[in-house]
């Protein structure tokens, strides 16, 4: 019986049991699932070429042996097997290959195989997310067949593009725009067209990138410039709502917000900086969004509960390990250092961790560092009756600046931009910061050293303009940041020449180019301006 049929038969309790009962697990039950499925995965690894390579030809018999024998891995460890998309070396047959860009990698893209069971689990997880998104208390949710669904996510081969295909035949919704039409459009067009259709017919469910959703809300409240909405196409109900909202906006002299027009049942959002955008989304759309977390290699691994106050990781998708920050920094300084990891039942509240995953159900990755930092907000939420750890997604690991989930800027990207610009930039470092609207941007500090007898630009604004030309040239998504999200992505600060080196001489080692520690930055700025590091605070 599919999801539609269960809804039709009003089997609400069964639906909750099937999709959301993992929230009732105790931590020990959760770990039992984790351990059992990891051993299944070890069996699968032990019978394939990729697994044997990753496990160094050994066959761990326990979870502890697995953690002891298998080193932490990065995509480079899998590249030779996966980039060729060779099914024969995998633990299980891949039914689909998901792609994403590989910043600073050996190839332009990274690919990850998805097995049939992984797809089945992904389907369940998508439905779980919709159920919880439309829920405000345990066991109660508001989904019906045939709802209008605004899908603001990237199509295949990105992971977000799996959604329409996985729920096909399970849960019937009207995608805005339709899957076929949407696939022919660019990311921006899809969102515009989807929103237009939503205006005409109403929106029940919304799944999108947090930053984009906020921008949509902003544009709507500014009067929806540029949108080609035809009043004639409006459904009477929507026309009435729209007219009513417009009139009350005029009377109250307040901007019209999406929540005045739309009656959303569920809101699912994802992407870096979501934590910064959630409040705005709620203000604009009148509904608390449900945050989810996922990635190409890991699939969707976490979502919030009905109270929308922290990510909970699904027990059967990946096996999770956590690297505490202390270990993480040790490894940053000494790449050969093997970080100690902790399991879900060993982590502590209020601590930050880098997550390490082992994909289950025939996935390809073992003890894989996906490069994301989480904070364990609490080990349980007794008020909700959930006894599992709740997390907050913090950001990508330091060497990457992820801007609103839209683009990822690495040291290599910035180095190339600086090289192409010929601006005589000698030393630099960049750190991700947030403006007053809590929108992220790159704060780039540079030292200029013109060659003798060769004049050059010293003005920060001119340098910024110059660099942006090359950022847009190198990174396709960079230009969309302003266009689609209204973000000013770059701020340049010119430091007196020698400031960075002077600081490095005192600490006897080099400062990270991308996202150096807050302490390092403050100290450099003190040297540079004989004051505090106000520009980063």
């Amino acid at each position, binding site marked *: 019986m599919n999801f539609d049929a269960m809804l039709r038969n009003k089997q609400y309790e069964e639906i909750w*049991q*099937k999709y959301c*009962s993992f929230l009732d697990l105790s931590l020990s039950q959760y770990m039992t699932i984790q351990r*059992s499925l990891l051993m*299944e995965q070890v069996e699968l690894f032990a019978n394939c070429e990729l697994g044997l390579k990753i496990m160094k030809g050994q066959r761990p018999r326990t979870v502890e042996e697995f953690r002891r024998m298998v080193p932490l891995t990065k995509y480079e460890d899998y590249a030779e097997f996966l980039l060729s998309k060779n099914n024969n070396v995998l633990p299980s047959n891949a039914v689909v290959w998901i792609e994403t860009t590989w910043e600073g990698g050996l190839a332009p893209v990274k690919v990850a195989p998805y097995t049939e*069971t992984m797809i089945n689990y992904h389907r369940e997880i998508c439905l779980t997310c919709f159920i919880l998104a439309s829920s405000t208390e345990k066991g109660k949710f508001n989904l019906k067949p*045939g709802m209008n669904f605004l899908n603001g996510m990237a199509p295949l081969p990105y992971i977000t593009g799996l959604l329409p295909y996985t729920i096909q035949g399970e849960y019937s919704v009207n995608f805005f725009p339709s899957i076929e039409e949407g696939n022919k459009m660019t990311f921006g067009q899809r969102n515009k067209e989807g929103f237009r259709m939503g205006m005409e017919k109403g929106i029940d469910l919304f799944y999108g990138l947090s930053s984009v959703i906020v921008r949509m809300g902003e544009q709507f409240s500014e009067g929806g410039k540029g949108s080609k909405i035809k009043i004639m196409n409006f459904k009477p109900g929507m026309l009435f709502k729209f007219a009513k909202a417009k009139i009350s906006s005029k009377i109250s002299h307040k901007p019209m917000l999406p929540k005045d027009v739309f009656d959303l049942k569920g809101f699912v959002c994802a992407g870096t900086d979501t934590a910064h955008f959630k409040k705005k989304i709620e203000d604009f759309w009148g509904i608390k969004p449900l945050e989810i977390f996922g990635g190409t290699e890991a699939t969707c691994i976490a979502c919030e509960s009905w109270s929308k106050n922290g990510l909970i990781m699904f*027990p*059967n998708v990946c096996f999770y390990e956590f690297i505490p920050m202390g270990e993480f920094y040790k490894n940053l300084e000494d790449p050969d250092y093997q970080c100690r990891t902790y399991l879900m039942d060993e982590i502590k509240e209020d601590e930050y961790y880098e997550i390490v995953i082992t994909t289950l159900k025939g996935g390809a990755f073992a003890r894989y560092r996906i490069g994301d930092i989480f904070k364990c907000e609490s080990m349980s939420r007794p008020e909700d009756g959930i006894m599992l750890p709740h997390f907050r997604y913090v950001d990508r690991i330091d060497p990457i600046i992820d801007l609103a989930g839209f683009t990822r800027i690495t040291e290599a990207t910035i180095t190339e931009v600086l090289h192409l610009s010929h601006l005589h930039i000698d030393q630099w470092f960049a750190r991700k910061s947030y403006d007053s609207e809590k929108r992220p941007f790159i704060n780039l500090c540079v030292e200029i050293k013109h060659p003798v007898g060769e004049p050059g630009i010293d003005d920060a604004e001119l340098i910024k303009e110059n660099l942006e030309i090359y950022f847009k040239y190198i990174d396709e998504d960079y230009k969309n940041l302003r266009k689609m999200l209204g973000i000013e992505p770059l701020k340049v600060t010119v430091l007196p020449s020698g400031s960075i080196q002077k600081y490095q001489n005192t600490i006897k080692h080099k400062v990270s180019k991308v996202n150096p520690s807050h302490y390092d930055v403050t100290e450099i700025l003190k040297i540079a301006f004989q004051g505090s590091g106000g520009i980063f605070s």
Partner: protein
Amino acid sequence: MIDQLLVILYWGLPSLSLAFALTILIILGLSKKDNLIKSFMFMMVSMAVWSSTSLLMKMNVAPGTLFWNRFMVAALVMIPFGAYIFFTIYIRMKRRLSIFFWTIMIGIILVLNSMGLTTLTAEMVATPGVSPYVELQYEIGIASYFCYGAIFALLVVCLLLARKEYKSSKPYTTGLKNIIVALFILFIGFGANLVPVIGKYPIDFAAGAIASVYFMTAIYKNRVLELKFVITKAVIFTALLTAITIGSIYAVNALISTFNAMNTGLDQNLFILVVTFVSLLVFQPLFKMIYNLVNNFFYKDENRRNNLIKHFTLRIANNLDLGLIIEDLMRVISEVSSNERNYIFLRNMDEDRFDFYASGKKLDRVAMSFANTHPIVRWFEQTDDIIFSKNMDTHPFFKTMWDTDRMQLNQILMEAAIPLKYNSKLIGILVMCSKDIRSIKDIDNIEQLSMVCVTASIAISNARLYEKAKTEAQMDAVTSVFNYRYFMDKLISVTADRKRGTTAVCLVGLDMFTVYNDIYGHYAGDAVLIKIASIIKQVCGSYGTISRYAGDIFAVVLPFMDTKQSYEMMEKIRSQVEGTSMSPEEDTPRHVTVSIGISVFPNQSKDDKELLKHTTLALSEAKKTGRNKTVIYSSEMEELGHSTNENDENQMATIYALTAAIDAKDHFTFGHSQRVAKYATAIAEAMGAKSEEVEIIRQASLLHDIGKIGISENVLTKMTRLTTDEYETMKKHVDLSITIIKYLPSFNKVIPSVIGHHERWDGKGYPRRIKGDNIAFGARCIAISDAFDAITSDRHYKSYMSIEYALEEILRNAGSQFDPVMAEMFVRLVKEGRLIVEPTRSNQYAKTSSFEQTIS
């Protein structure tokens, strides 16, 4: 004509409406009721009351038209209210406030109606000439507008609610559409009442009848309500009883009428009395018969199943045969569940998994098992609740399930799993699989099955305990393989039928195991045996039966294996043993080896005895030809006359150990026993003794002085002549030798040679003073050899003598002390160089000597 039609409509439509409403009510009444069905029933009851009160009103039944009219209005109001309640439940509406509002409204209307404010007057006026057509003439009150307003508002609300639900889940609400249409028709029908010209016709009842048809369609065809019929015994019984009672009343009435018509002149009261009496007589047995009939009808299947379970319980209570119990259980389960695809999995002996044991169908086997870590097993260890396949898809407990396990369950179409538990311990699992459709509806009486399983669990547990005890009696306690007795039975069974195919029997004997035991102790020895048993088990798998044949010999029976196959398997065992360290992990590696003998039935042996003999010969050959090898039996082995004594090596090791003990006690006699053995066997062979006899003489020679262990060292190593007492003490060594050898049953054959080696040909020896041929052949050989070595060796009390002197002495005492023929033979052997002899020197010797003293 029109008038007649009006009459029909006037009476017919309310009756039709009532009949439809009652039919729906009966159908719903026979079903299990949830709130949705109850609300629908409430609506139907209102419709039935509405129609019936209308009829009563038209019939002008007491207390009068106005009374029934008000009753009818009340029912009329309740119809849309019932519909409203139905829709709020159907769409899970949570607006409690609006429900409360409408409840209050309806309450007010009912109060107003009961106060007579809706209908002021009402009476039936007959139309002249058209009987029985009567027309209702009524005067409505001011409250009736409010009443109708509320009815229409409620109907509109219902229509809106229905429309909303219909639109939100369009493809699935065809049934709802029919209900919407029905309500709309009712809406029109009620509306007609407000127009007197139309209202005088029964338009509302026509609408009621049509609406009922739509309701029935929604229930039956579109399944708006999920009906689970529960035709109870009471319903049927009541219906039959009512029918009989009505029938009886009519019959009695008819009888009385007939009696009156006949005018017989008899007393009518008497007749009524008789009829009543007869009726009672008939009615009572009739009642009982119906009661039994209904009981039988309802409990037929249940009785059959109960009987089945009862007999099953009795049968298995005294049964200890696991196979029969399971067979019986599967049969009962198949009958109770009407499903043959049931499988039993029982906990295996190692208690690490549940293996397939039996199926409901003879040839239906499944190649799967449940490990202790399987979620189904872990579930049953925590609870007794039955697992249904649909729960496995939804319950988070089953998220631990591996894909392979899930696939297996899907392949067998598992529908439900029931635990077999005894004393809270899971001993087995009953897996029920549906034939075609994965639906639990196909498996009936699941609770009864649970009861059967509880009963069966006790019997299975007892049978397994018995089986375990039986198995333990056949098992070797140390190595957990079968014991000697089982092996012998097995040997007989595999050799019972020559046409059965080849069977290889292998004996795997540890090399020098006695020495290993002596060095490392018996605990270490046992550990070796366990390890080797496990290696054999691992290599043989399910192909063979392994038994501990003797202390350090394992027997492996390999049915359907030929020489080549068994040789390869045994070689694998041999090399694995060789390569395995027998010491605990942290210790220095210790290695042992095994020698293996193989013989195959029927190719090489005609029966079990011969098969065993040949295998022993092959093992012996392996031992004798260097150990750590596998030897297949060949007929040459028998021809070569190899010893069949399976304990050869052990015996020799024991002998060497014992002689070493004597040598250690008296250094002067070091090597004496070995030399005596050499001379004695040479004599025996020269005298034409068989090889087995020669072997016995060798062993006897080595052991002939073993009794000296019990003689004081002062006597043994005395440098001067022995006193008489000391000599007597010394003579006791022969008896002592026998005493020692008696404790070694496998050396019994050597006793005659040992006991007689100090007897003399002339009968003057000791201890038994026998003479001539009465002295054992071996003893005579040893006597010459013993004397010869004593003369030619250094002793405490003398120096060695020359060979020539010794030979002369032998010849001189031939016929008195020694067997003359043998003595002569010995001298000849030495002189002809066929027996190489040399004097034996020692660093210490005594000056004084006497020949007599050497004879000790």
